[in-house]
């Protein structure tokens, strides 16, 4: 499977994501420069973490004006799997592809630490191999990850089952004590209506090898690979 990893000038988790899909999982991977319009036949597009354009204005606000984003939008519209990680989540909300917005953490400080998230839905390309209620240990590293949506949007997200991950205790309890950044409903990740665009604030690529403390993030990438392989297999049968 071929992963395309979008590189904005201020992306800084692009190499980490590449490392995981290419070296840990042995897949094809390509960097997609934000100024270009070619997705290079990617089967899955990842918007990695970082500070796309410095992000001094609002995180991710300027990224949607990059030429590659039109292609990413078209790819998503056709049902292609798109994953936003951290800054990628911010970019997707600013672009209107995902609902809501990310505000500054309630503590107003940058937070880098291991957190736990509970898998709420497994019917997306990035959670297919997980079990509902499963707890993943994955680090966060952000200043602006406090998920916000107005009451109506929130209700819609809940109703459609589009809340994919919530912050929780190591045992899976969702409560304010285990919400690191003030996100509404402890939301750590959501998807779009068609469920092919998923984004989360935690960094699965930083939890994909045992030596860095957790392998729980690997399932995010493995899931999309397995979905892809099923499609291929289905296509041949």
């Amino acid at each position, binding site marked *: 499977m071929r992963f395309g990893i979008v590189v904005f000038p*201020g992306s800084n988790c692009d190499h980490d994501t590449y*490392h995981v899909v290419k070296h840990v999982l042995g897949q094809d991977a390509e960097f997609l420069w934000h100024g270009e319009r070619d997705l290079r036949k990617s089967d899955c597009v990842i918007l990695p973490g970082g*500070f796309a354009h410095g*992000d001094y204005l609002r995180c991710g606000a300027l990224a949607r004006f990059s030429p590659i984003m039109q292609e990413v939008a078209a790819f998503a519209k056709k049902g292609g799997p798109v994953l936003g990680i951290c800054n990628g989540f911010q970019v997707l909300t600013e672009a209107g592809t995902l609902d809501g917005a990310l505000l500054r953490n309630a503590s107003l400080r*940058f937070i880098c*630490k*291991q957190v736990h998230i509970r898998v709420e839905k497994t019917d997306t390309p990035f959670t297919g191999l997980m079990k509902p209620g499963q707890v993943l240990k994955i680090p966060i*590293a952000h200043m602006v990850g406090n998920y916000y949506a107005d009451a109506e949007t929130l209700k819609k997200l809940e109703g459609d089952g589009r809340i994919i991950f919530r912050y929780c205790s190591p045992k899976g309890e969702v409560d304010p004590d285990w919400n690191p950044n003030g996100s509404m409903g402890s939301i750590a990740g959501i998807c779009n209506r068609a469920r092919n665009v998923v984004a989360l604030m935690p960094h699965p690529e*930083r939890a994909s090898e045992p030596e*860095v403390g957790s392998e729980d993030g690997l399932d995010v990438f493995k899931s999309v690979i397995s979905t892809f392989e099923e499609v291929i297999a289905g296509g041949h049968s």
Partner: protein
Amino acid sequence: MSVDQKVLRDVNLTQEEYDTVCRQLGRQPNALELQIYAVMWSEHCSYKSSRVHLRRLPTRGERVMQGPGENAGIVDIGDALAVVFKIESHNHPSFIEPFQGAATGVGGIIRDVFTMGARPIALLNSLRFGELSQAQNRRLLRGVVSGISSYGNCMGIPTTGGEIQFDEGYTANPLVNVLCLGILRHKAIVYAKAKGIGNPVIYVGAGTGRDGIHGATMASAEFNEDAQAKRPNVQVGDPFMEKLLLEACLEAMKKGLIVGIQDMGAAGLTCSSTEMGARAHTGVDLDISKVPLREDGMTPKEIMLSESQERMLLVTEHGREADLQRVFHKWGLDSVVVGRVIAEPVLRVRHGEKVLATIPNRFLMDEAPVYERPMKAPAYHEDPLPDLPKTNVEEALIKVLRAPSVASKRWVYEQYDHTVRTNTLILPGGDASVLRIKGTAKAVAISVDGNGRYCAAHPGRGARAAVAEAARNVACAGARPIGATDCLNFGNPEKPEIMGQFCEVIDGMADACRVLGIPITGGNVSFYNETSGRAIPPTPVIGVLGLIEQAARAVTPWFKDDGDVIYLAGAGRVSLGASEFLKTIHRLTAGWPAACDLQAEKAVQELCIRAAASGLVRSAHDCSDGGLLVALVECGLAPEALNGMTLDLDAESAGAATIDAALFGEGSSRVVLSVRPGDEENNLLGLAGSLGCPLKRLGIVAPNALRLKWAGRKVVEVPMHKLSSAYFNALGECLG
């Protein structure tokens, strides 16, 4: 030569120095030349007070590929790879504007590392503030930490470690020392040399503004009051610009487009062009009408002295300008030819055709003044200590764990992205940061340490202890120390007592580095950390780099399983003199720190390194601030699990006569190890015996609580969660 004294005062040159300038040039300098001389001969650029002393530091070693003199040192780590690293201070700017001061300090050291051709992979910092009981110091700490975090995080370079201490002596002079570490392939080294006569000299990065222009200039009469108010000389950092520069420069280097490069740091364009010419025995001819400006009406002096951030000067091969431009353009940057490399070894500044200054490089560099400033032996504190009242061990332990210098710095390091780049094997909270080197089995470890209180009491002992501690931290992780960088923070060198401290510190460091076999590959000196005549405690900060052949064998400080046996390794002496215990419990600053026996130090480090390499130990943690009991408690406070312990100590096993000295005394050469009982334990004992390193059994890892007996008598039993909340929450409670 006669010259207006006010002019000299404004540029901070003495009459003798001015006379030397005239002798060198065979004429009087013009106003611009005088400014150029003044910045190049400033303490900051010329090291005129420290140079004679720095020569005593050992700088050579098998692995040293580049010692002091370049932008950063380079140490070979095998596999055709090398580590580039250096530490630098940004003390004065951080006091004036903590956020921007610290942020631009980080920016500067990152540039020093990537200009050598390296990809920066880690940042560390060493910070000193006055006591947190004062709002002013809390404000400085918050500002500095958010400045470091905002810059490093945006760059995507993890800040993986550091240290912070608090002492009243830093109240009006906080210290902000930042270290950057990068990795490069041997073949990819780029030097800061202006080679190749006729090659173009190119400017890239942010436009030049008036920021950071020499304080002397600001105070001159050229601006009226209103203009001064509007034109502050605080430098503002732009990490996004720096990220673009980093990526563009590395890409251009990979394509072989960069002959030499240096960042425009202190003294900006002046310093970079002079030094690049001098190193290559060439000259640089600059046309300052080509320099991209951010503000209107800038004078040649301002252009030459500006310290605007995120700017680089580089040399490319003649004819490849367009290729270079293409790379920078991709990253949204302009590259502008601002000069040429010339054969004549001078700095020449022109504006169009008009020559504004011509100064031979050697006058500005090799022939700059060097002073052997008068020295006076430092005034030592009294030793021995007065009689101390008895203490309750549990109460004292909790107080010491809560002391800001000892307590967990989690409130700080959670604000630093320390996991980006996915190399961080041991996160902040341990002794050293450990980073894997992808594509190899190896890892590097690095730690920064220093103790101003020790150095104030006894500079020589304090300096030895600082080197020993940094090296020991690295050894605890299982890494062999292979190089060091140092940042020397002192008061006014024109005072003989300060020079006396400086000289003793250098001798102590040199001694320790020689015995431990650690070459110093670069560093930084920061003098004049003084306000209203009061100097900071002398504060050498040492960053030691270590190498682990098998990353998988890296050792953490944390106990693993109940039943593992706890040992104290090393023959270190302890003292309550200058200890945290004395300060926190008895409100006393008195006595001397223990002398560091460097042979004993070497033995305990060797034990840690070999035991780690053969997988014998389950944890290793150095005893430093707070002493043995604090170290033991820290071993039980792993980030995600608490481990208790049952300890049975006495004067013999803890190496001190009284219980207070045994539990809270501080000293070098001591490490808490834990090992699986049985074969591994026996093998460890055998190894220690063969290395002549004492190993004293202290107890075992056990559930939930710290249980301590002294000479058979029960003295403490306290649940670990109580110690954990004291240790982890103290700093956050002060800082909110």
